[in-house]
């Protein structure tokens, strides 16, 4: 059909030169023939003329077809340009990139909606996903990361200020104008930096920083170092040490729990990844058969073993609260090997000593701070040193023996702090309490908590 249309177009409408139609072939020949030399000569001339005409016709026809093909091509290009220009058509690459961009835009929007600031690891994971997706489809996503990082920084700054304000409010309620700079003596650097130019801020110098107990420690110098350490700001020390794991501390073995280090979550708040990890450790350890009272046929309890194991699984260096024999034993047999020498009383004694050395990494804190820092991702020990002697032990053995003390791990709690019950704990002992038990210090430590004999130690690193 195309051929006939083209031929008709060529023969009738375009009137190309040198092409005769069948109807007027004679008149067309008349103009081309040479002077006649005779009948055959005329025939020969007519044949040559005809052949020439056919050749001309073929050539013209090919040129016409070429012109039409070019026209079609130009038309297709024009159409493509129009469709592309009108955004009706796009290339596969463009479409992929556009749709990837759309997906990322939605992801960005959702991320900004979901952003809470306290779920740092979740935010990091989302950003990692976005960056991987962007890289795959050639879409620039750096601005998204910059935007989210800025939001995180803003959140952290606000959070820090909120905490400072909370502490300021807690201690600035009592006014003692006789010593306007007293706050620097009790509150630490963050507070001092914020309020150093505010002459109208006072605190009651008679109100102790640690309100619950430890009167006997107030003059030991334990708290002096507190003023010189800014825990939250020391990001190089506490943040992003994801790969520390177990090897960092001991280089001995790799444990199933060490994919993320306990202290990586220093700013995580009640980040659920972190909470779930610590809860799993607590539940696993507290449920272990060898920390069950009576498992060995005695009535011994195993709080020290469970506490040590929980810290081991969390990758925490705790050599400062272990007897030398256990430090050596663990260096040979692995960090998670069971204690051989260190009892709960020993742990509290050693913690007490270590806390007086700022370089030890251990710090004495209050009960409320214990919950605060446990929620922040710090390992915290609750400990009771029992100074009561086992009756008749002296008579029987010729030496004294103290009754067992008690230790437990302070675990994150999303409820408000209740000073009557103290921080939330996981423990082994007479009763074993995992996270399901929702037990607090008042339950695990009983009378010693009431008598304000329970101490709390923060593992800084």
């Amino acid at each position: 059909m195309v051929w006939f249309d083209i031929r008709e177009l060529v023969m009738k409408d375009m009137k190309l030169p040198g092409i005769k139609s069948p109807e007027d072939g004679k008149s067309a020949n008349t103009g081309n023939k040479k002077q006649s030399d005779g009948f055959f000569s005329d025939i020969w001339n007519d044949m040559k003329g005809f052949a020439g005409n056919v050749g001309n016709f073929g050539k013209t026809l090919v040129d016409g077809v070429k012109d039409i093909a070019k026209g079609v091509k130009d038309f297709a290009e024009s159409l493509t340009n129009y469709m592309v220009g009108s955004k009706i058509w796009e290339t596969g690459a463009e479409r992929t990139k556009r749709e990837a961009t759309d997906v990322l835009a939605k992801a960005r929007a959702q991320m900004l909606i979901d952003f809470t600031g306290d779920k740092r690891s979740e935010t990091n994971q989302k950003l990692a996903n976005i960056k991987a997706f962007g890289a795959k489809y050639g879409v620039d996503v750096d601005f998204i990361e910059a935007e989210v990082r800025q939001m995180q920084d803003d959140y952290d700054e606000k959070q820090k200020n909120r905490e400072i304000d909370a502490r300021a409010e807690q201690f600035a309620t009592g006014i003692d104008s006789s010593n306007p700079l007293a706050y620097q003596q009790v509150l630490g650097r963050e507070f001092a930096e914020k309020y150093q130019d505010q002459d109208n801020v006072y605190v009651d110098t008679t109100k102790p920083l640690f309100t619950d107990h430890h009167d006997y420690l107030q003059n030991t110098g334990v708290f002096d170092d507190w003023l010189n350490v800014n825990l939250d700001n020391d990001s190089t020390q506490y943040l992003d040490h994801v790969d520390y794991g177990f090897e960092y501390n001991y280089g001995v073995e790799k444990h199933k729990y060490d994919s993320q280090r306990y202290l990586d979550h220093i700013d995580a708040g009640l980040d659920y990844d972190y909470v779930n990890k610590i809860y799993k450790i607590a539940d696993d350890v507290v449920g272990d058969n060898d920390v069950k009272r009576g498992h060995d046929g005695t009535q011994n309890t195993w709080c020290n073993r469970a506490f040590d194991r929980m810290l081991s699984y969390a990758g925490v260096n705790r050599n400062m609260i272990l007897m030398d024999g256990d430090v050596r034993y663990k260096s040979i047999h692995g960090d998670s090997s069971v204690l051989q020498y260190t009892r709960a009383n020993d742990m509290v004694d050693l913690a007490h000593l270590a806390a007086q050395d700022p370089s030890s990494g251990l710090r004495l804190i209050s009960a409320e701070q214990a919950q605060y820092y446990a929620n922040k991702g710090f390992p915290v020990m609750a400990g009771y040193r029992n100074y009561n002697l086992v009756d008749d032990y002296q008579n029987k053995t010729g030496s004294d023996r103290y009754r067992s003390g008690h230790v437990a791990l302070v675990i994150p709690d999303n409820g408000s702090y209740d000073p009557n019950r103290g921080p939330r704990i996981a423990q082994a002992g007479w009763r074993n309490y995992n996270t399901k038990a929702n037990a607090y210090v008042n339950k695990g430590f009983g009378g010693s908590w009431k008598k304000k004999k329970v101490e709390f130690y923060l593992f800084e690193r």
Partner: protein
Amino acid sequence: MVLIGMVSFIAMCQQVKKIEVSEWKNGFAFDKDKNPLFFDDEHNESVNGFSWDEKDRIVTNGIINGVHLFFTKNELEVENSKAKNPTLMDSSIKLRYKIENNIGYVSKDGKKWEPLKVSNYNETGKKDHEGYPIIYVNFDCSFFRGKYQLVFGF
């Protein structure tokens, strides 16, 4: 009519009669005859809980209900454990607890109260491996009952 009134009056007097506390020991109030009246955690600084005597424990569907008791001022937590690991708390119920007229009462909802009977406070004279005295006491209410050992250790 007068007789009925007098009987009612006497009955009311007997009902509100308050037995006086003559002694406190390990959080328990005792009358002059050394019978335990009730447990008050406000008077307790040494007992960390009560564990059902192992010899008397009843296992129902693999669970020991009421295996351990923990008192606070206004609450009594009754802990349950699986028989295969009686040291590990598996679940618990929290009862409200109050003391009126020197009687301890428990309630699940704070509306319907029942007395928590205390009896047979028994200082055996023996000591455990830590040197703590071994003492038993009986508790009895609709939520739990049995012979419980006072827990002094951890």
